[in-house]
């Protein structure tokens, strides 16, 4: 009874804490500008099915892709076991689902095989990161936290899987001894194999190990759940909505700035009358996270820092400062900073609100930008932005359809249109387009000169 109460309290506390963090992330994403991505629902579902559920872009690199599928399938399927653990924990039962009979044996058997495959994949991934030191895991932006974040996730998964298999191993011996409530249930193709290690132990010790593993497994899972919102590992949740809301247009098509269209129309046609209530746009491009769309911000939270984008980026691969992964990491870091500022302000408001309430005044609302003297440019430099060739290799490589190029473009728009900050050569190129209709120093009148020598 006592353990049931502990379990229920732990479970509720972790669910509530997790929900609070999700709410914050949702609020942060919604700080972005509106963007309609609700069109073509069928195509969106298909994209999500193919890319997120079907892992189609992961397997482009077969070794990492297949290992990732082991962990992914293991994670999804083994979570069915968590349902049983939760029921057992609340009701005080043992292997509640065992009434399913041979189907239960099949379930537990397949969980065990997947757990073993997950273990294998986690070891391979740890080796790739820490022993083979694959280049993309050691780039400039992979500072201490991004690296330890990845290792923490892998080690946690290894511990969880080991606890799960050990729980089954000891349980299988207890079952064979007909000990207390350990009824014969489940098939243990993996745990059964190393049960022999424990066979000399007394039933009481075995039961203790089994219980410790059970508790470790479930507490581990609840802790892991609550680590997600702080980690790059959040991709396991956001991969699905993020692929659903993918950009379905041709990759070559850049967004049209409607605010500019209206201005240009007025400029080209002096007789044009601006629509009623028309106001000239006040800002162009992105200076801070507020100027990006919610999809850009969701992209940032969906990034698991695998670095496939940067490993195919022509700028990055030739030693330039630009790394598309860093663009995403920086966007998330800045967004988190803005989120914290909002939380801080809210707390202060609440405190002063109480005071004012006591004085008979009402608290003022409104959620305008909080000026902390910082913006995206404190994280991302002009040099990085200028190095992009807009080749779309990064968007093609991303396994969850993140679009770093759109953020780069929006920030370039800010630099060029708001600040007139650009290399002198670009300034020249633009001047030439404006005056000659070509980016070079040639006269418009000479454009057709090649015609005279066609048949030479």
């Amino acid at each position: 009874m006592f353990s049931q109460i502990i379990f229920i309290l732990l479970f509720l506390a972790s669910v509530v804490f997790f929900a609070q963090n999700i709410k914050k992330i949702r609020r942060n994403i919604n700080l972005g500008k509106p963007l309609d991505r609700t069109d073509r629902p069928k195509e969106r579902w298909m994209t999500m099915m193919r890319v997120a559920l079907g892992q189609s872009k992961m397997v482009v690199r077969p070794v990492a892709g297949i290992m990732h599928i082991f962990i992914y399938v293991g994670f999804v399927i083994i979570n069915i076991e968590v349902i049983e653990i939760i029921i057992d924990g609340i009701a005080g039962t043992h292997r509640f689902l065992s009434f399913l009979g041979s189907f239960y044996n099949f379930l537990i058997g397949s969980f065990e095989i997947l757990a073993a495959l997950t273990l294998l994949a986690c070891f391979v991934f740890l080796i790739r990161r820490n022993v083979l030191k694959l280049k993309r895991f050691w780039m400039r932006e992979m500072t201490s936290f991004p690296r330890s974040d990845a290792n923490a996730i892998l080690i946690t998964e290894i511990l969880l899987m080991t606890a799960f298999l050990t729980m089954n191993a000891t349980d299988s011996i207890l079952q064979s001894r007909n000990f207390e409530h350990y009824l014969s249930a489940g098939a243990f193709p993996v745990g059964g194999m190393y049960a022999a290690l424990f066979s000399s132990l007394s039933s009481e010790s075995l039961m203790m190990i089994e219980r410790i593993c059970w508790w470790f497994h479930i507490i581990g899972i609840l802790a892991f759940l609550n680590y997600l919102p702080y980690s790059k590992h959040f991709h396991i949740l956001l991969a699905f909505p993020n692929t659903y809301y993918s950009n379905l247009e041709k990759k070559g098509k850049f967004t049209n700035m409607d605010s500019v269209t209206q201005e240009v129309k007025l400029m080209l046609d002096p007789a044009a009358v601006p629509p009623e209530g028309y106001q000239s746009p006040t800002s162009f491009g992105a200076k801070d996270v507020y100027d990006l769309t919610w999809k850009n911000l969701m992209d940032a939270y969906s990034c698991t820092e695998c670095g496939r984008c940067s490993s195919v980026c022509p700028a990055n691969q030739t030693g330039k400062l630009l790394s598309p992964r860093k663009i995403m990491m920086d966007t998330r870091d800045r967004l988190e900073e803005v989120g914290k500022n909002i939380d801080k302000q809210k707390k202060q408001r609440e405190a002063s609100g109480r005071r004012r309430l006591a004085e008979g005044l009402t608290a003022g609302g409104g959620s305008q930008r909080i000026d902390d003297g910082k913006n995206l440019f404190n994280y991302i430099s002009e040099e990085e932005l200028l190095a992009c060739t807009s080749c779309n290799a990064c968007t093609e490589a991303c396994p969850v359809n993140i679009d770093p190029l759109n953020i780069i473009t929006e920030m370039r728009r800010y630099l060029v249109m708001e600040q007139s900050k650009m290399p002198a050569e670009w300034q020249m190129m633009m001047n030439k387009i404006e005056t000659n209709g070509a980016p070079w120093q040639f006269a418009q009148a000479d454009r057709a000169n090649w015609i005279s020598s066609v048949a030479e």
Partner: protein
Amino acid sequence: MSKESFQVLTMADFSAKGESPEILFWVGCAGSFDERAQKITKAVAKILHHCDVKFAVLGTEESCTGDPAKRAGNEFLFQMQAMMNIQVLNGYDVKKIVTACPHCFNTLKNEYPELGGNYEVVHHTELLQQLISEGKLKVSGGNFTGKRIVFHDPCYLGRGNNVYEAPRDVIQKLDAELHEMKRSRSNGFCCGAGGGQMFKEPEHGSKDVNVERTEEALALSPNVIAVGCPFCMTMMTDGVKNFNKEDEVKVLDVAELIAQANEL
């Protein structure tokens, strides 16, 4: 086939006759002014003429599509260019456009519709593919028979617009050996010119992008590096020069391959 002289007509010429062409050949700035790219332009014109395609150019009425301005972040300049071009194009009631520049292609095809310019836009390799499949263009290997050809995907044709097969189909007709770099099609590696890079010095790094890409192509010991973009042409040609291979390895546009094979 004999070389014949012919006159390239402008939209204004057609208009004056009260006629309209089947297709507008959008030449682009590089194709109009860059000496090397002019050869691509002429090859396209010769092929179109050879296939009896009734085509016209805009001549001095053509202006930059605004692509480099847009990629660099100057949306104002882009839209100014776009709207002026759209005025000209719509004035001539243009329906179909072919261009040998993937940047013009992408911009005209994907970014002009929202500003009121709706046309059927094809890349010249797509048109060549179509002319061949319709039997209007016959291709035999000519001096390319048995030669090793490597095709470099232009980003704005390949990843940007999912056109991967048209240039390859056309090259395959040459009885040559088409070789693929490891980074090809959707994994293609940029030549380094896109996103406004063509018009400025690269940022500090360990290598130039075009050198990296040319190295990859040269590793396959090709006789020809085939391209489908005037900017890739510049970058790959410079890359080949960087390795002092310009005597052994030619950089040619797909249209030039076809024109030369047919001795046009």
